[in-house]
């Protein structure tokens, strides 16, 4: 039958070598976010995920992957690249946080100011942004999201299954706890 529903699961497994990860490898629950730094819904989810992380502590592994929708968000790609440059200098999460805390200020000069604030090698930062060194990796993230059924940002996966429920703190926590209870921790 042509109308068969398909399973929306994460097609690219979490990879410690490649992914941006917070939390221990043996955490019971893995939460993957596909996000866009300029998307207001992602901005709204940002403090909620922080809160979830605080409450679950070492039982939660959090992964962030890029899903910039440049058609709607003209600064999203450049912001994603800025975070990837920061990652190569060991400051991914610091940049990730700064970007979400300053969603309305993502012009090139803003990104550069954040790089300076984080003490990055600014010359290298400028060069890598200008040459779009990390564009391919971001596109890889994006495509893996498309293939996994990302249908807007943010899209969350709990232990590999797309979370279609609420993004409010309590229901999200419950879904995460359920994920931890019903599965033995998919990486």
């Amino acid at each position, binding site marked *: *039958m*042509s*109308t068969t529903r*398909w399973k*929306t699961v994460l097609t690219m497994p979490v990879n410690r070598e490649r992914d941006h990860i917070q939390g221990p490898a043996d955490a019971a629950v893995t939460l993957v976010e596909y996000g866009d730094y300029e998307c207001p819904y992602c901005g709204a989810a940002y403090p909620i995920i922080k809160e979830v992380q605080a409450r679950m502590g070492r039982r939660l592994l959090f992964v962030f992957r890029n899903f910039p*929708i*440049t*058609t*709607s968000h003209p600064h999203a790609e450049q912001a994603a690249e800025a975070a990837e440059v920061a990652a190569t200098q060991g400051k991914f999460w610091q940049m990730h946080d700064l970007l979400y805390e300053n969603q309305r200020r993502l012009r090139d000069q803003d990104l550069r100011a954040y790089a300076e604030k984080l003490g990055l090698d600014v010359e290298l930062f400028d060069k890598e942004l200008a040459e779009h060194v990390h564009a391919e990796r971001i596109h890889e993230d*994006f*495509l893996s999201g*498309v*293939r*996994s*059924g*990302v*249908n*807007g940002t943010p899209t969350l996966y709990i232990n590999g299954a797309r979370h279609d429920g609420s993004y409010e703190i309590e229901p999200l926590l419950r879904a995460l706890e359920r994920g931890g209870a019903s599965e033995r921790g998919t990486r």
Partner: protein
Amino acid sequence: MTTTSADHRARPLPAGTKAPDFELPSTPDRTVSLAEFRGQPVILAFYPEDWSPVCSDQMALYQEVLPEFQKFNAELLGISVDGVWSHLAFAKDRNLHFPLLADFEPKGKVARAYHVYRARDGTSERALYVIDGDGIVRWSYVSPVGVNPGADGILRALENLGKEGAS
């Protein structure tokens, strides 16, 4: 168990059906017909209305994924009951660079032919069709109206066209 009428989704034309031909305006001075894409796959994305939030996310997503669709030489056509001027403004506002067809007069004629018209709302379902180069429906899907169906189903259907050879 109570099912609200909102849960009653249309049953789209199944795979193997000949896709009904159509000719609809995409701009005030251009019309698009299904027949002109014979020989290449066509993605028909029915959506309820321009401007409503979910539609916009869905169409923005498809714009972003367009290069992937094009790897299969597929043509993407958005289609709703809105008129061409609304489509033009919507496409400009959202940076959409694929045709949006106006199923406007007679209203919803093409949506009806594809079994995805919502008479109660006067709009179409949020429905996807992948039609092969011979004009045969190879995949169809109706999403709950408020849910963006994403692009993974479309890509899978396009891949399957290649696997099944034929066309």
